[in-house]
């Protein structure tokens, strides 16, 4: 009897184990477990990879890893990348950056390439194709551009009462937006003294706060007096509160359930060269990444280009048959920031320098991404990624980020610090213990690993650092509630003005309260730069100072991934756009067999 009971117990345990294993098992093999399985051609031809002929029909389900916060990306609350992605394909835009980083004017909308007709004041013209119409046949004209500009400007400009654009900088830099040639030519004139080296990427590009141009006639149809500032304000709220029922792009929104999904169907009036072939594109908002693998296996999901990097998900996707997956450098980059108001960090630049020298950026990146993405890219420039033509290595020669503990100790010793060899908490200055420091970041896996490593590096030079994760990154930064902070900035090929955002004294995004008169002066100059070359050079000068001040240590470009099942073609990632994989989704379709 006892033996039988034991046997039964063993069988039960075995059955339970089998269940466990079945949950972990995948049906793939080791084939193509590299970072670009099925996307190999993207390494050489990022703009055209995974291309193929499409057949008509089919429904594709894509997922966003977060639901949009609004129907329109105009307002502060709706202005997230998820809203931009959700309504992508609805608003016409004048151009966008491609995965390669090249600028591509939208020649579906434009008759000719945009032209800089004057540089004083900066004046740009766009010629709209006669064929370009909204979904009800109304022509897309300069009136739409003008209204979009007016509703994007700050209230002081006097164009709109009650509009709440989340950013007004681009619109406020314009003097006028006018139409001619029956509204088919749009002339944009910047204010006197405004230099606009990135004039080609105006606020009407896919990279503007709206991601395109809003329709004027739709507002009039809904009873708003758009010649009146108050009427524009009312239209603003209307757009903010209602799912778009119009389209000037390749897709129309069939339904928009803001908690669950947006369903898009081809716009029958689409005037572009390539029409959507999918019968429907469903973009579901699946916030829990653990749900994606079963959904992929169950044909409920076909692809995603999530914002985060989830190693376990990537491994599972790589193990699935029939799914393409690609890992690459993403749009954001990680860095360590100092709190300049901290008693020790603010007053001792050598201490900051020693800390940055002790940190081994390569080690952090290797341990986080080495196994799946050995081609991770260390960040050596605050503004330009390694692939940018403007990139200059600003870490070279500084020894920051090298993990050179001996050098870090020498720097501290020369500055009068003692106790570097005595482990965490041993470092002193004038007999007073330095720190401990609060090392903060979110608890995302890669950041948690980095924090532990950084804690270890600092221990080697006698500094005690206490890791304090935060779930409220924004709140922590704005409140300056950290000593040393790790977080990410979203990079963009558009770079003019970056210095004023990151390092200008008093800037809302200068979270560590850095202040340097030289940098401030360079920022002022840069805002007047007339060419990209001049702007880039001024940024280089700023970065040299910021590096010497040891305020921000760039770590690495955060990797991202994309996956899509093999039956769909023309899907590829775009790290230069907030839209990521969705950047030209009207080209997606079922592959011709």
């Amino acid at each position: 009897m006892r033996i039988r009971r034991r046997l039964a117990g063993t069988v039960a345990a075995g059955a339970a184990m089998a269940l466990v294993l079945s949950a972990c098992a995948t049906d793939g093999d080791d084939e193509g477990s590299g970072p670009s399985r099925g996307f190999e051609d993207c390494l050489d031809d990022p703009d055209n990879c995974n291309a193929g002929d499409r057949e008509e029909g089919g429904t594709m389900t894509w997922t966003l890893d977060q639901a949009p916060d609004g129907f329109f990306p105009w307002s502060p609350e709706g202005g997230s990348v998820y809203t931009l992605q959700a309504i992508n394909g609805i608003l016409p835009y004048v151009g966008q950056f491609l995965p390669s980083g090249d600028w591509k004017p939208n020649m579906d909308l434009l008759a000719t390439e945009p032209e800089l007709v004057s540089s004083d004041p900066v004046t740009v013209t766009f010629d709209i194709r006669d064929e370009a119409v909204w979904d009800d046949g109304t022509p897309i004209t300069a009136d739409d551009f003008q209204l979009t500009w007016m509703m994007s400007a700050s209230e002081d400009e006097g164009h709109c009462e009650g509009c709440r654009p989340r950013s007004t900088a681009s619109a406020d830099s314009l003097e006028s937006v006018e139409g001619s040639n029956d509204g088919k030519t749009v002339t944009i004139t910047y204010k006197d003294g405004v230099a606009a080296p990135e004039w080609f990427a105006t606020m009407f590009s896919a990279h503007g706060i709206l991601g395109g141009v809003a329709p004027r006639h739709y507002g009039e149809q809904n009873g708003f007096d758009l010649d009146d500032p108050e009427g524009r304000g009312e239209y603003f709220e209307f757009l903010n509160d209602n799912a778009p029922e119009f389209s000037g792009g390749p897709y129309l929104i069939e339904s928009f359930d803001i908690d669950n999904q947006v369903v898009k169907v081809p716009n029958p009036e689409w005037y572009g060269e390539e029409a959507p072939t999918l019968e429907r594109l469903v973009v579901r908002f699946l916030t829990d990444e653990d749900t994606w693998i079963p959904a992929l296996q169950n044909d409920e999901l076909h692809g995603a280009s999530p914002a985060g990097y989830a190693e376990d998900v990537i491994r599972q996707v790589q193990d699935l048959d029939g799914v393409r997956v690609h890992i690459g450098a993403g749009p954001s980059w990680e860095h360590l920031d100092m709190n300049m108001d901290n008693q020790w960090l603010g007053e001792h630049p050598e201490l900051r320098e020693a800390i940055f020298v002790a940190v081994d950026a390569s080690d952090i990146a290797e341990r986080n991404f080495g196994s799946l993405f050995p081609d991770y890219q260390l960040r050596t420039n605050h503004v330009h990624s390694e692939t940018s033509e403007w990139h200059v290595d600003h870490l070279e020669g500084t020894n920051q980020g090298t993990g050179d503990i001996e050098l870090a100790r020498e720097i501290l010793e020369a500055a009068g610090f003692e106790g570097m060899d005595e482990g965490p908490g041993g470092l002193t200055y004038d007999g007073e213990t330095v720190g401990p420091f609060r090392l903060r970041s979110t608890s995302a896996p890669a950041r948690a690993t980095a924090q532990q490593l950084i804690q270890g590096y600092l221990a080697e030079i006698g500094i005690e650092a206490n890791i304090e994760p935060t779930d409220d990154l924004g709140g922590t930064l704005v409140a300056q509630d950290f000593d040393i902070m790790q977080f990410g900035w979203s990079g963009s090929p558009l770079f003019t003005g970056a210095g004023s955002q990151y390092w200008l004294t008093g800037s809302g995004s200068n979270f560590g309260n850095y202040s340097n008169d030289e940098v401030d002066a360079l920022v002022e100059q840069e805002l007047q730069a007339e060419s990209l070359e001049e702007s880039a050079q001024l940024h280089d000068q700023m970065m040299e100072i910021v590096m010497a001040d040891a305020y921000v240590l760039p770590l690495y470009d955060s990797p991202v991934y994309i996956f899509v099942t093999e039956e769909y073609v023309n899907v590829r990632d775009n790290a230069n756009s907030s839209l990521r994989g969705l950047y030209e989704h009207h080209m997606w379709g079922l592959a011709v067999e």
Partner: protein
Amino acid sequence: MLVYSIRRLLAAIPVLLAASMFVFLLVDISGDPVAELIFQAEATGEPLSEEAQQEIAARLYHDRSMPERYWLWLTGWPGSAHNGDIGLIRGEFGPSTRGTAFDIGSDIASRLATTLRLVGLATLLGIVLGIITGVISAVRQYSKTDHIITFIGFLSLSMPVFWFGVLIKEVGVSINNAIGFRIFYTIGSQSPVREGYSAWDNFTDIAGHLILPTITLALVGYAVFSRFQRASMLEVLGSDYVRLARAKGLRNGTVMRRHALRTALIPVLTLVTIGIAGSIDGAVLTETVFQWQGLGRYFVDALGRTDTFAVMGFLMLSGTLVVVANLIADLLYAVLDPRIRYD
């Protein structure tokens, strides 16, 4: 009984008031929605303008002090609260960070129906299975059957929902693949596109989405009910009146059905009300694992976007449900058990 009910209701008021203070403090200090929106905007490469930041702060009452914000959230008084969108006692949960078009009260109400569908079915399944297996287990105490049921009960109790959810999805997908037809769905409470669906198609679609999460959520409830029913049944089976009934020569089935089971069900049934309230909290995980758009996921999503008033709304609703469930359980107990009478 009436006096007792009124007394219990009055006693619930200070409990809820204390809960409101606790919830508010906990949530308010844990995140700043204004800062979160500022940072979100940075991710698009377009920093929020100063004007926009001030507008958001005012709309979310973050231009007020914390005590003032709490008072406003609780009472909506003074009348300077914008748009009358705040004041729990007036049924207003406060503004959502998602914008003026979103009303937290309406959102919660619409999600409640989805959650109740899941919770109701899961509780029913848990109760039925729990009672049946609990009774069998007690009647056949220390038998092989009892051991197996006990093993399954403890296994169920110890399996995390998020893990079991993944496991059962694998099983569902495997079955779908084996039969070459999709019966089980792993995400959502229904398909996003149901164009051309007949009533039958709709029914099967909803059922297909319901089965796996229901089993997942029912699992924990089942384990609790089963163990509780077993213990209750054993206690009754060992009581004098059951022994007397047997001694009188009543048939075993009659003793079980009329004397033992009826009595043993009383404590279990009172547990049901608390179980339903508890399941709503349990639905947080299940709805996340299956991406159901119910109250649970609403809470998780609200946490993710630092939608503080929405988080507080969920927690207060949850707390109120627990208080009400306890009240109902006590009253039910008094009604069902003739030995217990309150005045």
